[in-house]
């Protein structure tokens, strides 16, 4: 039976006045009119809301990343070994991240995502996936990337391995590592299999996913399928070629099918999505695989993100019906 999940981020505001309480709270906090603790209360309120909203439609929600400034500085700012610099475009999106500047050895000094995950988990009727940005992506998006990526990615893998271990210790049963930078790589970075092992050292009995979005990875698929993650998440919208490449393969790896476009408001026909997934019957273990958006849903307005999850849920229902 195919499952449904999200990739990570979820719109933290909506157009309704009540849907903008986090935006207003941050503005007040920036003006020193709100304490850290009062801001955290609002963040947690919104986090619980978005987790429950996702859980209405998907089997495996995430915390929505509502407390993240961006997927890069959220980690770099809390690790030793970075200072945070200016704004830079985040891949080919119209969002921006604060670029980290390496200034010494990277070290994990304390939990980064565990509190948010625990809050999300407490609010959700279903298990909640814990998500971290991967070491290769963090290294590539840091200042002065070209010269330091291999060493930096290794140090980050050790640090993020601690983070994932802490998430497991806190009770997380599903872990996801996001590596959008791999979509732009000509080849799998040398030593990435070792990086993956270090990342997953504390995995225990949790299930692990590697998710790559914002592009295609058809040429990397054989190597990606060999990595020690339980699930491989793929963007089949921006990486349309990946779908064709996967069609030529037979694998025991569980796949997260990113078939619902998380970067365009146009709604898909669930029947078309279901048909694409069913085309993999017998070649991918569909009963343990996932249907999901192509990337985080934060690039869409809140109301449309919800509609996309409905499409996803309906497509999954059609797949289950056809497979029964």
């Amino acid at each position, binding site marked *: 039976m195919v499952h449904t999940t999200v990739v990570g981020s979820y719109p933290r505001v909506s157009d309704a006045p009540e849907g903008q309480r986090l935006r207003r709270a941050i503005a007040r906090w920036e003006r020193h009119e709100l304490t850290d603790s009062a801001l955290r209360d609002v963040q947690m309120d919104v986090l619980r809301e978005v987790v429950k909203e996702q859980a209405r439609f998907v089997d495996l929600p995430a915390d929505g990343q509502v407390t993240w400034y961006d997927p890069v500085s959220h980690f770099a700012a809390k690790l030793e070994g970075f200072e945070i610099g*200016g704004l*830079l475009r985040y891949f080919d999106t119209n969002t921006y991240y604060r670029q980290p500047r390496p200034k010494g050895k990277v070290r994990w000094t304390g939990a980064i995502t565990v509190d948010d995950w625990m809050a999300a988990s407490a609010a959700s009727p279903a298990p909640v996936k814990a998500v971290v940005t991967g070491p290769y992506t963090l290294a590539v998006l840091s200042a002065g990337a070209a010269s330091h990526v291999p060493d930096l990615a290794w140090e980050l893998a050790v640090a993020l391995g601690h983070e994932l271990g802490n998430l497991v210790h806190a009770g997380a049963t599903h872990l996801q590592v996001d590596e959008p930078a791999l979509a732009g790589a000509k080849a799998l970075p040398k030593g990435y299999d070792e990086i993956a092992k270090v990342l997953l050292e504390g995995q225990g009995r949790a299930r692990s996913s590697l998710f790559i979005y914002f592009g295609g990875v058809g040429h990397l698929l054989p190597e990606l399928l060999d990595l020690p993650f339980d699930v491989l998440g793929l963007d089949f919208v921006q990486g349309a070629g990946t779908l064709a490449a996967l069609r030529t393969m037979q694998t025991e790896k569980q796949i997260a099918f990113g078939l619902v476009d998380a970067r365009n408001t146009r709604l898909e026909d669930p029947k078309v999505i279901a048909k694409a997934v069913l085309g993999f019957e017998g070649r991918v273990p569909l009963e343990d695989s996932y249907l999901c958006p192509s990337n985080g849903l934060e690039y869409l307005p809140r109301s449309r993100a919800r509609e996309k999850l409905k499409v996803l849920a309906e497509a999954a229902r059609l797949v289950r019906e056809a497979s029964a």
Partner: protein
Amino acid sequence: MKHPLRTTTVGSFAKPDYLQRARNRHAAGKVADEELDRLTRQATREVVELQEHLGLDVFVHGEMERGDMVAYFAEHMPGMRTGELVRSYGNRFYHKPIIVDELGWDEAMTVDMWRYAQGLTKWPMKGMLTGPYTMVEWSFDEHYGSRKEAVLGMARVIHREAQALAKAGARYIQVDEPAIHTRPGEDFDLAVKAMETVVKGVAAEFHTHICYGDVSRIYPGMLRLPVKQIHLAFKNTDFGLLKLFDRTPFDKSKELGLGVIDVHTHTVEPVKDVRVGIGRALRYVPPERVWIEPDCGLKTRTPEEVQAKLKVMVEARNAVLHGLGA
């Protein structure tokens, strides 16, 4: 010879509280169109007066009538629909529009406010447009399904608007393209072609503003843009972008818009830091071809911060001019 180190700003100014409140109430149907227009013009007049007080050389009208550089045009352009809120970065959100039909131009979208602002001062007022690549890239496309078709369709619309501004008397027109480096390998030629369409046959001096992306991937290609001035956010990189000119000197036929003020921090830069930054740029481009500006639009700052930051900018420019004996 041109006046060295001319000063201008990138476009938007902070909206005063009374205008922001009125805009919110107008959106809720509690303020009439006429009242909002009156307050918008009042705020525009204050922006013009501030620039006169500070002694800037080329003015902007401050974009008091615009909620956002993309959404404003979408509200007035056939083929586009206003969208819902989407995050841009940090705590900044905008109503991301949707292209739902063939793009078109019915009437001027920016000329009325430009004419009003220009009527308030003898100093030249820039016409402010958002470029076709950015307009499309920062919208959802439910109609064209091809970025090329959408961008070129948008370029034809923005061209009509540029014509209208020039006809009204705008000597300077700025076409903002902050998204131009989103897909440098794939799309840069398209962005250049779109800019060619915008400026073709329009009798004005064109400037463009590019910010917060990987500029190294479009340099020196960006020198092909058919504009007189290219403005970049130098302060955001602590002037690290200047290293690009070691590799390929800046085009001698163009002018450089030097971003010297960080628009994303509440901290007001010391005059000395700005002066040093200008001095570093002058090692690459002579003062006659350098404009001094903030990194980007000022709408993210408070009105007090805007005034303080621009005051520093002008003082630093004056100090450098003094050092040059100008």
